[in-house]
């Protein structure tokens, strides 16, 4: 009787820990995003725009001071520039950039891939984690570790700014991790009109990417009113923003990595900020 009880307790604990870890890896990580002061510049000769970068659970609510040091502006001709000013506060970082070249710019704050190895060791079936990639894990993990899986995590935080006439060069992809190709140009998103995006994983259209799209102002309404989409066999999603406003799309894909020397699986994100304009 005692034994059974102990066993049961151990099992319950293990389950709790596993569930807890799973939550850490997904829901608990604060999504990182960027919020531009404006998405459009009409001033001849250009204009300054400012960007807030933070990580939080609320849509456009500042919480953790995610850095802007790696921020890049992809210019209309495809070359990359760094922001002119970067400041890090306690609950957000900001950067400013002077937009003067005509066309569409992509603003991106991408981190570097991080690797976590999940394993079991010893007599208990507790799932443990180590900050190690496939190359490092053999030296870090106990001998006879089992159920060893290394996961790559990577998040893009991005948005688009258009000066005058929209262009497409800055929309081009790197062919790495999860990427969003706006079929509907980001400067053409209008309330009540269908929007179409396409997801790519390592340069190929990817089915099964899940994304939730949330309009700003979640603090001031009872329901999130989010739009949930999953990409089809061509990697495409379509949705209609019914109300004008600023939206955050949080897209995630979890998949196997083949022949990757550093990881077995990937959990990759695109956090894309856009505006749906008034008709």
């Amino acid at each position, binding site marked *: 009787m005692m034994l059974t009880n102990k066993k049961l307790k151990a099992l319950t604990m293990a389950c709790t820990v596993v569930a807890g870890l799973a939550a850490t890896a997904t829901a608990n990580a604060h999504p990182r995003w960027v919020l531009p002061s*404006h998405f*459009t*510049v*009409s*001033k*001849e000769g250009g*204009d300054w725009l400012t960007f807030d970068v933070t990580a939080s659970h609320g849509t456009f609510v500042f919480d953790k001071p995610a850095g802007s040091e790696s921020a890049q502006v992809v210019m209309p001709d495809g070359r990359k520039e760094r922001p002119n000013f970067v400041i890090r506060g306690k609950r957000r970082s900001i950067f400013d950039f002077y937009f003067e070249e005509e066309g569409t710019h992509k603003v991106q704050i991408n981190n570097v891939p991080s690797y976590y190895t999940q394993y079991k060791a010893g007599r208990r079936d507790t799932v443990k984690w180590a900050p190690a990639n496939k190359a490092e894990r053999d030296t870090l993990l106990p001998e006879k570790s089992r159920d060893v899986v290394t996961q790559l995590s990577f998040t893009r935080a991005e948005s688009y700014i*258009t000066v*005058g*006439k*929209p262009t497409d060069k800055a929309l081009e992809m790197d062919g790495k991790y999860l990427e969003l190709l706006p079929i509907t140009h980001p*400067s*053409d998103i*209008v309330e009540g009109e269908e929007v179409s995006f396409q997801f790519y994983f390592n340069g190929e259209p990817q089915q099964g990417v899940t994304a939730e799209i949330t309009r700003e102002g979640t603090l001031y309404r009872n329901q999130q009113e989010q739009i949930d989409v999953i990409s089809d066999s061509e990697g495409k999603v379509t949705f209609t923003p019914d109300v004008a406003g600023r939206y955050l799309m949080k897209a995630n894909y979890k998949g196997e990595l083949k022949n990757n020397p550093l990881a077995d699986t990937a959990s990759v994100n695109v956090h894309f900020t856009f505006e749906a*304009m*008034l*008709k």
Partner: protein
Amino acid sequence: MSSVFPQRIKKSQLVAALALVFPLVLHAAPIPENAKIEVEFELPKIDTAMYARPYVAVWIEDANRKSVRTVELWVGKDEWLKDLRSWWRKVGRYDRELVDAVTSATRPAGEYRFVWDGLDDQGNRVEQGDYTFYAEVVREHGGRNYLRQKLQLSDTAFVHKIAPTEETGDVSISYKVR
């Protein structure tokens, strides 16, 4: 002579093909020589602590929702052109020269009258057919109104009246053919 003949066949074939596919082409004739649209346009007096003259864009789109002519653009500084959300997205951002050519200063509350001469932005008389009149009025510290009125431009005169909104007073659109 022999070189003209095949060309004529080609043209008639083309017209026949177009007429089959696109019945609108059947009455594709320019609007009458003297046809024009007179617009009476009122900016209402608004009693508020921070009144700024509104930004105004008035333009005409064809049946394919393509802008054919920006008739009025009252903005002043080009920094604020983007606040005319629809006009900027549909027209302004594509053509800086057009913006420079049509832009003028903002105006105070009052009654205005202006004319669309029936020419497109390139100076050509437009074809008869279905068009839409648009007016977008945006005021800082104030609201935005977006007026739409379908127009059927042929050889028949008409008058349309648009009811007042928050940012616009009486608006009337008179199509005159002589």
